[in-house]
């Protein structure tokens, strides 16, 4: 089954070459043609249970597909698979009410939905408990107001998971936050504004303004006041996805740089015969291998219903740092040519850099591990 999907990916997406991705990134234009193809291949519904028309893949198989697709097409491609599967298919099928499932899952199965997640705010990135977007009850409905930032694909999204405060108390507690699943296109009062940025440019990330938007009780995903708990499962899967995207894209740059190092002759010998060129590539290869085994372990734990928080965080941290180091070395291997946008090397260098900052910055991961896995005192 997995081998079949992989060979379909190879055949079906072969036409999306470096030129395609570079052009999309330059123009900040959505890769709709690519999305169409991967939708037809079923890559957007891997985590949708079979009863709803998806593939119902295990997480262990899912990460292999994310890795493989990213190793061919890079970060934006992997991110598309993640957004559809994690923020759409998985979130609704695992947390949705019967009503939400009835309404949304058929549309997800028919590939009519682009999903996004809106957590970050100007004053609450890593410090999520500090969000100020609010949803206040009024006449059996909720009035949503506030401002989110960096929301990838918000401007084209049909399903947005929005985290908001639903308590009046001014506490820094995980209680009192609620996750809503809304279709921004069905509401007035939501505006988006694209940010001119350096990662995921083809997909686009936005500021989102909620100006007294009326939403319904039925839009709550999970339970009222339990948004944090609802997010845990989603964010863990997001971690495994970004780990696999980093890893796959790391392989992509490793393969390109290795090929270039073999092909280019300088001072009468192959560039790659120099240890200062080849050792960082070999080192990177080893780091990717180890990171991949960590991803596998995290995915296996998740499939078995065990607590894999440490493994998922460690995997995301390791994959991002290994892939970034490789991308940076690739810039060195390609020399001046790396600075030509059309070579498509700096694209991966820029995109991969994201994963050392978002969804979770390295500092937060290390601090989480220090506290929860190593029992060290809090540093802040």
């Amino acid at each position, binding site marked *: 089954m997995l081998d079949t999907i992989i060979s379909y990916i190879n055949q079906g997406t072969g036409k999306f070459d470096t030129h395609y991705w570079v052009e999309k990134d330059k123009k900040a234009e959505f890769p709709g043609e690519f999305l169409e193809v991967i939708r037809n291949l079923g890559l957007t519904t891997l985590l949708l249970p079979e009863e709803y028309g998806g593939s119902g893949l295990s997480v262990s198989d899912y990460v292999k597909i994310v890795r493989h697709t990213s190793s061919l097409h890079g970060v934006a491609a992997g991110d598309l698979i993640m957004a559809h599967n994690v923020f759409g298919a998985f979130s609704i099928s695992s947390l949705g009410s019967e009503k939400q499932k009835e309404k949304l899952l058929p549309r997800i199965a028919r590939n009519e939905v682009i999903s996004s997640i809106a957590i970050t705010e100007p004053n609450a990135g890593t410090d999520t408990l500090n969000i100020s977007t609010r949803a206040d009850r009024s006449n059996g409905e909720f009035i949503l107001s506030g401002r989110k930032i960096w929301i990838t694909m918000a401007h084209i999204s049909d399903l947005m998971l929005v985290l908001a405060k639903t308590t009046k108390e001014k506490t820094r507690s995980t209680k009192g936050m609620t996750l809503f699943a809304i279709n921004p296109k069905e509401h007035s009062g939501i505006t988006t504004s694209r940010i001119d940025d350096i990662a995921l440019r083809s997909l686009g990330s936005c500021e989102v303004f909620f100006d007294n938007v009326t939403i319904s009780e039925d839009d709550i995903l999970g339970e009222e006041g339990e948004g944090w708990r609802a997010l845990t499962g989603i964010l863990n899967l997001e971690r495994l996805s970004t780990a696999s995207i980093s890893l796959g894209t790391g392989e992509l740059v490793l393969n390109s740089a290795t090929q270039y190092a073999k092909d280019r002759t300088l001072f009468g010998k192959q560039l790659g015969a120099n240890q200062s060129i*080849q050792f960082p590539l070999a080192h990177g290869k080893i780091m990717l291998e180890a990171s991949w085994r960590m991803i596998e372990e995290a995915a296996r734990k998740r499939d078995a219903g065990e607590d894999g928080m440490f493994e998922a965080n460690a995997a995301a941290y390791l994959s991002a740092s290994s892939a970034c180091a490789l991308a940076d070395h690739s810039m060195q291997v390609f020399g001046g040519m790396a600075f030509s946008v059309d070579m498509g090397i700096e694209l991966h260098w820029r995109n991969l850099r994201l994963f050392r900052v978002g969804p979770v910055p390295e500092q937060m991961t290390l601090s989480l591990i220090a506290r929860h*896995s190593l029992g060290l005192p809090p540093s802040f």
Partner: protein
Amino acid sequence: MYGKDWLGEFTSEFDEDYYTDVSEKEEFPEKFWQSLGERSKFGLLVSKKNGGSGISFTEFVKNILDMSSKVGTLTYYFVAQNLSAKLFDDYGTQKLKSFLPEVMTGKSKVNLALAEEQSGADALSIRTRATPAENGDYEISGEKYCVTNGKNADYLMVAARTSDSGEKKSHGLTVFVITRKQPDRIKFKELKKMGLNFLPLYSISFDRIIIDRESILGEPDRAWSMLSKTFAADRLALSAMFIGMGNMALSRALDYARKRVVFGREIGANQGIQFPLSKAYVELSASRAYLEHSARMVDGGGIESNRDLPMGVYYHAVRASSSAIDASLQTLGASGYLSGMVEKLFRDIRYYRMGPISEQLALVSIAEKTLGLPGVRE
């Protein structure tokens, strides 16, 4: 740190203090050795039909992880002896197999003498020679360099040239097992060193020592393929030890970081102390996942087509362990610099970054074989 308490009934005696103590006194951990021997723990990989335990490689690796997180580098000679016993089991003549009981119980110690001063890491360029005598015996002359426990080993496996390499550089090497002391023809010289102080190191010179054919291990002239297989296992086994050593240091540092208060707060509350420890734990955990995957491949037979996988694991593990031990030493501050467990691990682990395989040569191997990059010789 690992679930199963493999050392079981005799853990209390053999722990980090024991490791520290024998290292400090520069003495071989004889009691530990005997304790393992009484339980035949040196025949773990030997087939059951020859009296061994015949456990899987995966299990062997788990044992090493357990053991080394308690007694650190003392695990080194345990690994070496088990792999030697496996060599006897897989390749030994009747005569060599008859030594298995004493080897599995540790009554006799075995060590490999391969490296030579001029050969360095290029083992195929060794110059020790073995020439056949008329009666079918062999006469060996040459010098070996840096042989662990050389003088105290009961059996030395000596690699020698038996014919010139010809087309294939790896052709023409044979391993002989010296089973009989020939004091007038073998000279040992002890070498002083910066770590691994519970194991003495020797250079050895052989002056026309006599070895019978029955003492040849494996096929004459074809030793390299036998040794390569053992090296692959050795690399993985040692990786397990590095991970255990790293965890051993890390546990000590974490304990200290939680309790030690300076400037009115625990030092572990500072990110400058805390993050390197987190990183170390993450890297060690990744090493373990990587290692366990490879160990399963050894058991499943997949390692044959993936010969440089152990190189990657080794490289990853020795670095993860070195950083963990270094971060631990830093956490302990002055108390870590005083003679003690962490400082000893620090000096011990340093060796493994240059041997049995150096970091550079591990990278060369991955670059050439896995990535297909041009080699140094081209």
